């Protein structure tokens, strides 16, 4: 394992320290926690919006803290949900009295920790709402199991809920638009190489010289199947087919597209993927309102990508277009 780190057990702390140094104009860190909040939190008259999860997905989630997006990000250990005490501290810090929305990715650990924190906050008289993101079509959607994972599409939920909150909407309104976003966003990823949790010291899985994993999760969880390497066009087609099967779109529908790198994928390759994605959507006469290409929800140094599609109506596209001023997302 070759990484630019000091102590494998201190990576989150060191990262957050560096982040605060770099962006002290936008962010502050709650003392003795791994919680990053807006410099001006709590913003009075505004619903607080919080997200978080394991670290290793940077710029998610602290990169989205700022005007028009998140008020707080709770940063767990690498790939490990943060604990309820930390989430509670974040809720307390960003609540201005209008309540707080928790944007949770659908993983058992995140669900349980955020729920426990929500219960504690409610016991203190803070209004809390929760929205669960489960955009990953690589996983079967079933109420009998854990259900689908939340991956890169979560960033759209941050953006849209954050934009409405910034406008002074109520907690119920912000929750409703976040849920609408979740209902309209689908994603799927794939990996070329594995990644190594620093404290684990070795890769979470292995891929052969010519092997790729279709449907890869953002924690190195195995996907749908291992296949041999294919062309960018074929890969784009596979991912998009799976998405479109699940999110039926008709001619003249409007979408936002995210081509997300998992950490070690050159931008060049993401644009090559997008070439095919835009071709396919054009053929289907689906209108791309905006395209986001870059690293939004990574998986340490994994090579690979995910594609997300968000079906837009007027409200969603307006909120997507609204001003945002965060480290990793500016509009």
């Amino acid at each position, binding site marked *: 394992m070759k990484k630019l780190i000091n102590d494998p057990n201190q990576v989150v702390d060191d990262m957050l320290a560096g982040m605060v140094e770099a962006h002290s104009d936008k962010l502050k860190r709650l003392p003795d926690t791994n919680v990053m909040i807006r410099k001006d939190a709590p913003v009075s008259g505004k619903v607080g919006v919080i997200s978080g999860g394991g670290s290793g997905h940077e710029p998610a989630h602290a990169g989205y803290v700022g005007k028009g997006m998140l008020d707080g990000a709770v940063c767990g*250990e690498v790939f490990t949900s943060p604990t309820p005490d930390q989430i509670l501290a974040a809720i307390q810090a960003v609540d201005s009295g209008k309540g707080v929305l928790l944007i949770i990715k659908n993983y058992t650990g995140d669900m349980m920790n955020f729920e426990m924190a929500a219960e504690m906050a409610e016991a203190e008289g803070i209004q809390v709402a929760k929205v669960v993101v489960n955009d990953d079509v690589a996983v079967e959607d079933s109420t009998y199991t854990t259900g689908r994972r939340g991956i890169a599409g979560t960033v759209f939920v941050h953006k849209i809920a954050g934009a409405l909150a910034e406008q002074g909407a109520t907690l119920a309104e912000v929750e409703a638009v976040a849920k609408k976003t979740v209902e309209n966003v689908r994603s799927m990823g794939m990996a070329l190489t594995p990644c190594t949790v620093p404290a684990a010291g070795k890769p979470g899985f292995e891929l052969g010289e010519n092997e790729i994993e279709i449907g890869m999760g953002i924690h190195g969880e195995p996907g749908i199947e291992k296949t041999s390497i294919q062309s960018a066009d074929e890969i784009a087609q596979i991912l998009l087919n799976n998405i479109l099967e699940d999110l039926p779109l008709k001619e003249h529908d409007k979408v936002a597209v995210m081509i997300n790198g998992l950490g070690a994928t050159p931008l060049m390759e993401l644009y090559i993927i997008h070439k095919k994605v835009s071709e396919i959507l054009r053929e289907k006469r689906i209108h791309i309102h905006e395209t986001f290409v870059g690293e939004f929800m990574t998986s340490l140094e994994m090579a690979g990508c995910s594609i997300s599609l968000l079906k837009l109506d007027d409200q969603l596209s307006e909120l997507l277009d609204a001003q945002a001023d965060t480290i990793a997302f500016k509009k």
Partner: protein
Amino acid sequence: MLWDVEQAKKWIKRLNDKIQENKAYLTELDQAIGDGDHGLNMARGLQEAASKIANSHYDDLGSLFKDVGMTLIAKVGGASGPLYGTAFMKASLVLKDRKEADRNAFVAAFSAALDGLKMRGKAQVGDKTMIDVWDPVIAWMKSHETIRANELVDLSKEKMEDTKELEAKKGRAAYLGRRSVGHLDPGAVSSYLLFASLAESFEKGESAP
């Protein structure tokens, strides 16, 4: 025989030792069907819990269990933190104000712990989680007047091993569907270590309740 604060402390110390020993192993198991942090999570949390209780004085079992539970909730994270944390918290309610536990109180505490696990995780037996160890072990405790160390370790080991052939329905391994078959569930293994260290502490004459 009665189970007291000293014995509970020794158990947690033993459990922590076992978890530290098996940190890499648990992580490897989690790499196969999860995200490769179970050993790291458990090792971090139990280290904290063990040093917390080593440095504290407890008048009753309830406050010891509460400290362990709170520490696990605050330090483990992931799925296993809220689960194990809740288990200890629920047990602490049963053990509140008790300087020592007899068999009935002991079983009631572990039974409350299992209820906590089920309430928190909503998993059923057969879903390939730690429940697949806890549920049969607690049932066996309830139906046996004497908790014999060797039987406890054998049963929990057997149930842990049985998770290998299950298809996961809950937790991160559920994303794998059929591909989860053939791998032990990491949380079942850490739960086995929990019961095995309990059995060991009974054997070492630290006495069973």
